[in-house]
């Protein structure tokens, strides 16, 4: 038994959950695949874990007109099995396969990954790259924050300690959109060094996400703009979008280079989703 002691509650309504989260030191637990690891290592602390497992409001995928709302209880494996239809679903399937391993994907959640905000998180890259947003709720009210504003830095987000991320909203991708995800990693068992996600819309414009290239997952705006001008998006990603930090196995210049290569590679490898 490695974590320090904490209390534990399983609220059945959102109101109860938000009341519990107003307790100082309270933390949300969904899949717990990162939180329990960090509590075990005592890299983080909690006086109370608020388990969202019984909150119906957080379950499932909801289609809206121009967007798809993915609840905070939706696990990696649900997305891997095709919980979302169309090109967006195909991109989620392709990305989910890069997340950890099946026994972790059966517990961990997409929204949980966004809240954990690991710099190499594929989900953070995808959600930032698509220009998604995170829905937050607390006893003080509700708000929606763009993923680009939600992700502050490594393991830092815009969520206040008493706020619960209830869902992520991603834009629906039109039919004919080509999608892809590529990674560079040192070993199969490790995290991504750099990952790139792409959605190329039928009009030729692209939405590009990068993981590992900056302190958070980012949208590669400069690479998208370069592509639209007919210039090399890889060069723009490497020199403008990437903002890497020194890494034990990768100097800054190398990570920039990899970001550029992966942007070119993912654009070359995008595939159209099966209808």
């Amino acid at each position, binding site marked *: *038994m*490695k*974590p*320090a*002691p*904490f*209390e*534990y509650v399983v609220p059945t309504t959102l109101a109860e959950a938000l009341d519990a989260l107003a307790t100082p030191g309270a933390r949300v*637990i969904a899949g*717990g*695949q990162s939180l*329990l*690891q960090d*509590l*075990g*290592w005592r890299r983080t602390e909690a006086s109370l*874990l608020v*388990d969202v*497992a019984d909150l119906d409001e957080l379950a499932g995928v909801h289609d809206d007109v121009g967007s798809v709302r993915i609840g905070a209880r939706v696990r990696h*494996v649900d997305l891997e099995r095709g919980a979302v239809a169309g090109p967006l679903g195909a991109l989620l399937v392709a990305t989910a*396969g890069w997340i*950890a*391993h*099946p*026994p*972790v994907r*059966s*517990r961990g959640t997409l929204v949980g990954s966004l809240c954990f905000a690991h710099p190499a998180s594929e989900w953070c890259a995808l959600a930032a790259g698509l220009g998604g947003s995170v829905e937050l709720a607390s006893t003080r009210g509700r708000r929606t924050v763009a993923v680009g504003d939600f992700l502050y830095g490594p393991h830092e987000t815009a969520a206040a300690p008493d706020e619960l991320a209830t869902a992520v909203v991603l834009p629906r991708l039109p039919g004919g959109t080509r999608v892809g995800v590529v990674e560079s990693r040192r070993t*199969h*068992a490790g995290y991504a060094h750099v990952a790139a996600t792409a959605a190329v819309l039928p009009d030729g414009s692209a939405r590009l996400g990068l993981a590992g290239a900056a302190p958070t997952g980012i949208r590669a705006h400069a690479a998208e703009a370069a592509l639209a001008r007919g210039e090399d998006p890889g060069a723009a990603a490497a020199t403008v979008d990437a903002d890497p930090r020194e890494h034990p196995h990768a100097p800054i210049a190398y990570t920039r280079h990899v970001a550029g290569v992966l942007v070119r590679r993912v654009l070359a490898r995008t595939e159209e989703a099966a209808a």
Partner: protein
Amino acid sequence: MTALDVDLHVNGTEHRVTVEPRRALAVVLREDLGLTGTHLGCEHGVCGTCTVLVDGEPVRSCLVLAVQVRGRAIRTVEGLEAADGTPDPLQTAFSEHHALQCGFCTPGFLVLLRGALDEDPTVVEDDDRLDALLASNLCRCTGYEGIRAAARAVGTQRAREQ
């Protein structure tokens, strides 16, 4: 902290345990229920030797709190054999294909494969899919070739039966 009463449904048997919330499922299985077939290796979700099935899906029982799986169907390596004691076909195949040496990782691999084959036995027909699955768990002595062979033997037979 407050210890909680939790009903754990393990290998078809109901157990009422009183646990501190911070205790991992793997620890409660081993220390409170005496089910020491579930091993603890790294205790932070990397090695996979603590793999158990929760509602049929493989999970790392070191990264799941016992209080999180109240009322869910938990299956451990002790629950693989048939009621009459006949070993699971995977257990027989592991023996036949020399898929273990020291045996420490074996319970995790057996449970991982049981969950995967029950969900989709065709996973063994594609080398990439099988490798991606087996990469979930670490074997540090005999290597993965025997484990692959055992998985293929059972999966192919299973697919033929369906």
